[in-house]
Structures are given as structure tokens and as C-alpha cells.
């Protein structure tokens, strides 16, 4: 269970980027997480509420977009999403494929913020 450390890193990262938007409140955080990233969304959501409490992220929603695992097949010379993470094979020809092109991502794609009105 390392989801709590992951969520803490998200809070630190987002808080840091908020420095450029004084007074802003975070409404939502969008993640891109590869299917190979070993992160469980339910655990992330569970930890998110706890870890954001008392931070500028409190009350915001966490949206997790899962990315399929894409391998490059050297025989077909194309990229393709594998059907299951139990078998790293080219979806076209069935050859074993060791070149993983997508699926390990763990990134904050964007945040949605509400900015304070600036007095004229």
C-alpha cells in the first residue's frame, strides 16, 4: 500500500504549482496512470480525502484516466495495446514483445482551479 505516499506527492506537487495562482482553490485533479503502474484507483481515492484535508486541495475531486499498455512489435513494426497484462504479446501477430511504449505513466495531467477575483 503505497497509495498514501503517492497521494502525498500529488498534494506537494499541486500545492507547489498553485504558487503562481494566489488565492486559488483546487476543484479537481486529473491523473494519467498506466495500467502497469501498480496503483489501485480505489485506494488512491480513499487516501485522497485524508491526505488533502487541510490543504488547498481539500474537497477537490480526483479523476484517474487509465492508459492501456502499449508494446512495440519488432516483427510487425507497429505499436499495439496488449490484451492483458498477463501476456506481453503483439495484438496483431502474437509474437512476444518486450518493448513497452506506454503503461508505466504516473502523472498529473492537469488541475482545475477556481481563481479569486482580482480587484480592479
Amino acid at each position, binding site marked *: 500500500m503505497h497509495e498514501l505516499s503517492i497521494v502525498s506527492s500529488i498534494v506537494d506537487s499541486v500545492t507547489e504549482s498553485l504558487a503562481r495562482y494566489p488565492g486559488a482553490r483546487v476543484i479537481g485533479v486529473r491523473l494519467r496512470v498506466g495500467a502497469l503502474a501498480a496503483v489501485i484507483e480505489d485506494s488512491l481515492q480513499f487516501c485522497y480525502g485524508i491526505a488533502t484535508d487541510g490543504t488547498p486541495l481539500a474537497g477537490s475531486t480526483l479523476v484517474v484516466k487509465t492508459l492501456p499498455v502499449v508494446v512495440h512489435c519488432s516483427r510487425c513494426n507497429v505499436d499495439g495495446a496488449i490484451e492483458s497484462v498477463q501476456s506481453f504479446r503483439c495484438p496483431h501477430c502474437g509474437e512476444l514483445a518486450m518493448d*513497452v511504449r506506454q503503461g508505466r505513466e504516473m502523472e498529473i495531467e*492537469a488541475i482545475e482551479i477556481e481563481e479569486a477575483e482580482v480587484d480592479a
Partner: protein
Amino acid sequence: MTTRIVELRRGILKKNDELAAGLRDRFTAANVLVLNLVSSPGTGKTAFLERTLRELLAQGSLAAALVGDLETDNDARRLAASGAPVRQINTHGICHLEAEMVGKHLDGWELAALDYLFIENVGNLVCPSSYDLGEKIRVALLSVTEGEDKPLKYPTLFNSADAAVITKMDIAEAVGFDREAALRNINEIRPGMRIFETSAKTGAGLAEWLGYLQEQRANQAGS
């Protein structure tokens, strides 16, 4: 109030990744081959490492080890008996090692004097896979008693590994280990990965493993 979307495109574990990249540069500059050993609790990481350290020292190589453990220093004491420099990293409940912990425990060690540095991770097949420690080679260990389908259950870890070590081969027959199935499953998750079939008890497979270490170190020096 106005709302807006701010694109960040930032790795969640960016801080760890940056620290790991810094460590990797240091290790390369010092020409020390660094290996990160990952497995379930009790697979035999410490036993395998004890044997590896002994053999390396006997052949005149200089090897050191860092060992992660939730609370105790038992593994560090076992490893230190080999005569190699060993340091314990107590993670105090954290289920994996992070680059920062590794960095902190290198203070005072002259890396350039070492040929090999082994890092025994906390016994866990999930969390360590996300944390780069700056290693050159990640080794996934699997014992003959824990099920041939482990690689299928933990594809993230096995797919991120560079080499696999099957441990406790001395009891393979007694526990009905299905060797073909284990090799097939590892290959299905990480096609072409080198696999070593070993026993820390009898020393089986150690010669091949030591040959691999030597070869990898030569590669690193040449690159």
C-alpha cells in the same frame, strides 16, 4: 470567480525520479554496478545475497550492501557476517525503499572503491516497482515455494525487472515446483529476460549468476 484548467503534465514521483537519476550518475561515475533486489517477504533475498557477497569477496571483488527492512536489523547482521560493508535502512513502516533513503545511507562510503553495490528492497511485490533507486539492474526473485504464477499476479514488478532469480531450487522437487510453467510465465511478462535457477543452500546456479554480474560490470565500464 473564474475557473480554469492548468496543464501540469508532471510525473507524480518526479522528485524520486530526479534523485534516482542523480544517484545513477554518481554510480556510473564511480563505476560501481548497482543492483536492486525485489521479491515477496521470505523469498530468500538475504540468503542469496549472503552467498553472493561471500563468493564475490572470495574472488577479490569489492561488494557492499544496503538492506531495507521495516523495523529490524537482522538482515544487515546476517549480511555483514560475509565481511562486506553493510548498512541497514529502516523504513519505519514504509513498504518500499525510495531514492532519498538510499542517498542518505551512502554518506561516508567511497563508491569508487566498490565493484558492486546490492540493495535489498523491503519484501513486497507491489510498491518497490514504482520507485527507481538509481540501480542499473533490477532483479526480481521468486522462490520455488511461492507459486509458478507469481509473475502473472505481479506483472508490474516482473515487467520492470532486468533479470529474474529463482531461489530455493534445492527443495524444488519436494514442493512439486513446475519449472516449465515458471519459466514460461516469466517469459510471458518480460520476454527474453535472463533467468537464474539458484539455491543459496547448495550454491547451485551461483557460478552462472556471478558470470552475469561480471559481464554486466564489464558492460558498464565499457559504456
